[in-house]
């Protein structure tokens, strides 16, 4: 609009401001606190999210180790924890789930990669709202603090599962963790606020702040994915924010929103939760697919197979994900006729997701595949995610879900999706962008040791759990000794295999941590574009300074022009004039 207030519209300034060096008052001369703790630089905020997410990942992993140990050797003393009591067990599984979804997958996949990559890949110097960005992290950090406090309050941490079904979660006399449940809920709500703020920032930046010449189809897929995920998150989390307020009031002020005795309805929460909960799966899946697409194209020197197809399937996945939520509630007491509708929509969502996998596989065709560490992770994502995806069909089909619902089959299924998403794809992204983030290379040998040490135990953790699920083992039970059908030794052996594999897998993470920290300071110095990639972040210095680019780039082509015929180089950066 042509009002004086809107000077920001382009066409009113001089071109010089595009090429200015980083504005004074930024960059090298800032104090430690300004630079690392209260920075508005998107890269610093991304690293804050990354390190917080990794820290929470360690806590979540420790919890997994503790309750897996209890399951394999019930009642024994867990090294590093002690004997696990039933309420501690419930708190451990609840917080393991919440932490891994809300405090690891979300901050690392969306916030860390989103913050780091969006401005760099779009060719701008920062997010559109740097201080809002900082606020987002601060709220997130607060949520971490509240969650960690909730684990140590009298009564113990919240133990009503990450789904927090009322009345168990709404009444202290049922849950027996009055403080734990309230603090857990507050932490989750704060986390939602943080990502709402962050999401608005991501979407606005991508829409408005692209480098000159960058059309919609020139945006790297990973940026698209993060934006679509932010939009899906934004549209699905609202009802749950309202629902969380209602649950909080039930806990604190004795309102009756979910209290059946006074006219409330516990099923309302389940709907509010899963209306968010299912799209949330795709909120983390899409960025993971995006990261994998970037890595695969670079290391097979191939153009992405059908850029528009990928984009449209991502959008379709995002939309269809809103229509499937009640498949989590097939046997939860919903009207059985509704289950038929939700079966149909759920099974249909396999179409866009399968298409995404097909496209990623087809991209490999005719390539020149170089099996570097990031590429190994990206390929492992596809291989493992296929298993996670197809096992979902058993659960989306209402008839078989009657048996498999709330068993270890479900658990194994979603770990076969979530681990590829939040662990494998993240490692692909981290090892791929590490040279850009820290200006140094990670050690390839250690990287490959870590890769195989993670992937092999990962499968031997969860394949036994599939079998246990088929044997009818239901979830969130701290000891199966009371169930004759499940206490049989051959099933106990499967539990022990899973637990031992988990411990092995966790030990190999030490290799990664060592490699990560060591490479940050001692690694081989990385040049600007060590992988010979096309996207704009590789145009900036490694690591990029505050302000990112010396000269703001102009974009001439799409991001995946690899091995273009009749060119000497097998890559063609987006900003290189023809």
């Amino acid at each position, binding site marked *: 609009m042509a009002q004086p207030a809107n000077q920001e519209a382009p066409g009113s300034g001089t071109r010089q401001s595009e090429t200015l060096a980083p504005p004074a008052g930024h960059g090298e001369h800032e104090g430690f606190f300004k630079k690392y703790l209260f920075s508005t630089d998107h890269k610093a905020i991304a690293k804050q999210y990354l390190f917080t997410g990794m820290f929470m990942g360690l806590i979540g992993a420790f919890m997994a180790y503790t309750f897996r140990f209890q399951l394999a050797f019930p009642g024994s003393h867990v090294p590093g924890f002690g004997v696990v009591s039933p309420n501690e067990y419930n708190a451990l599984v609840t917080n393991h789930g919440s932490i891994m979804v809300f405090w690891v997958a979300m901050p690392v996949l969306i916030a860390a990669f989103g913050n780091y990559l969006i401005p760099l890949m779009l060719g701008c110097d920062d997010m559109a709202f740097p201080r809002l960005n900082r606020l987002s992290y601060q709220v997130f950090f607060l949520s971490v603090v509240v969650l960690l406090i909730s684990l140590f309050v009298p009564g113990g941490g919240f133990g009503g599962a990450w789904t927090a079904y009322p009345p168990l979660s709404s009444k202290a006399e049922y849950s027996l963790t009055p403080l734990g449940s309230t603090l857990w809920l507050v932490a989750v709500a704060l986390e939602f606020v943080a990502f709402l703020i962050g999401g608005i920032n991501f979407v606005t930046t991508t829409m408005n702040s692209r480098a000159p010449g960058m059309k919609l189809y020139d945006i790297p897929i990973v940026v698209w994915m993060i934006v679509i995920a932010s939009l899906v998150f934004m549209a699905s989390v609202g009802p749950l924010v309202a629902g969380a307020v209602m649950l909080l009031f039930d806990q604190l002020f004795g309102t009756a929103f979910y209290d059946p005795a006074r006219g409330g309805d516990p099923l309302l929460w389940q709907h509010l939760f899963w*209306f968010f909960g299912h799209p949330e799966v795709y909120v983390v899946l899409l960025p993971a697919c995006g990261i994998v697409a970037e890595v695969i194209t670079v290391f097979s020197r191939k153009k992405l197979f059908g850029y528009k197809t990928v984009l449209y399937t991502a959008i379709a996945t995002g939309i269809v994900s809103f229509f499937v939520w009640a498949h989590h509630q097939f046997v939860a007491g919903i009207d059985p006729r509704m289950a038929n509708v939700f079966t149909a929509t759920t099974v249909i969502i396999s179409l866009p997701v399968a298409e995404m996998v097909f496209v990623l596989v087809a991209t490999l065709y005719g390539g020149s595949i170089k099996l570097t560490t990031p590429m190994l992770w990206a390929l492992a994502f596809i291989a493992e995610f296929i298993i996670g995806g197809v096992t979902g069909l058993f659960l989306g089909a209402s008839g078989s879900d009657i048996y498999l619902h709330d068993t270890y089959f479900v658990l194994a299924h979603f770990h076969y999706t979530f681990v590829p998403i939040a662990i494998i794809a993240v490692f692909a992204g981290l090892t791929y962008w590490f040279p850009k983030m820290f200006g140094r290379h990670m050690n390839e040998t250690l990287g490959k040791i870590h890769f195989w040490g993670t992937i092999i135990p990962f499968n031997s953790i969860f394949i036994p759990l599939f079998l246990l699920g088929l044997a009818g083992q239901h979830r969130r039970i701290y000891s199966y000794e009371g169930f004759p059908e499940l206490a049989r030794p051959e099933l106990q052996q499967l539990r022990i295999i899973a637990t031992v594999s988990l411990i092995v897998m966790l030990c190999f993470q030490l290799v990664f941590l060592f490699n990560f920290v060591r490479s940050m300071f001692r690694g081989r110095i990385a040049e600007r574009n060590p992988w010979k990639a096309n996207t704009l972040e590789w145009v900036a210095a490694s690591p990029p300074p505050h302000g990112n680019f010396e000269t703001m780039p102009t974009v001439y082509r799409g991001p995946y022009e690899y091995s273009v015929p009749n060119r000497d180089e097998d890559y063609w950066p987006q900003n290189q004039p023809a």
Partner: protein
Amino acid sequence: MTSSPNETHEAGPPASGDEPRAREADPAEHAQAAEHAQAAEHAQAAEHAQAAEHAHAAEHAHANPVRVWAILCALLVVSVVGPMAEIRLLTLITAFGIAGVKAYLVAKHFLRLGVERRYVAYALVVSVAFMVLFFAGTAPDVMEHRGRLWTNHAAQKEVERALKEAARDGH
């Protein structure tokens, strides 16, 4: 810039209205640029021109806000008086129909959605549509108290009890 977390507090150096601003690269500077980039910039330039046109047209097309306000006030009176007749259908129309009209007027003339780019309105409508979807998926369980093979006794009992109590209070 300060490290104040208060985002509403504008502590940075003032960006006054006449300060030179950044802008997109001038197309003329890239005469040799790839066709691709040029086309994109043309498209952008066209977009901007269109936006400016929009705004220009808007200044004339805008209804006088005071008049819109007067209409809104009149509608408010109708929505208060209408339900007094205590006819269910009339209540629904005057209360909720008119709320819809009022919201439309505010959105169109005060929020200026009418002259904003189309997709903004679509995005807002989609948000509302998702809520309708949520309602449609949830209402069969929560709104109804009896369904196929299940009965919500507690809710039925609560409705009965409360209606009886209200009748006793002489309502």
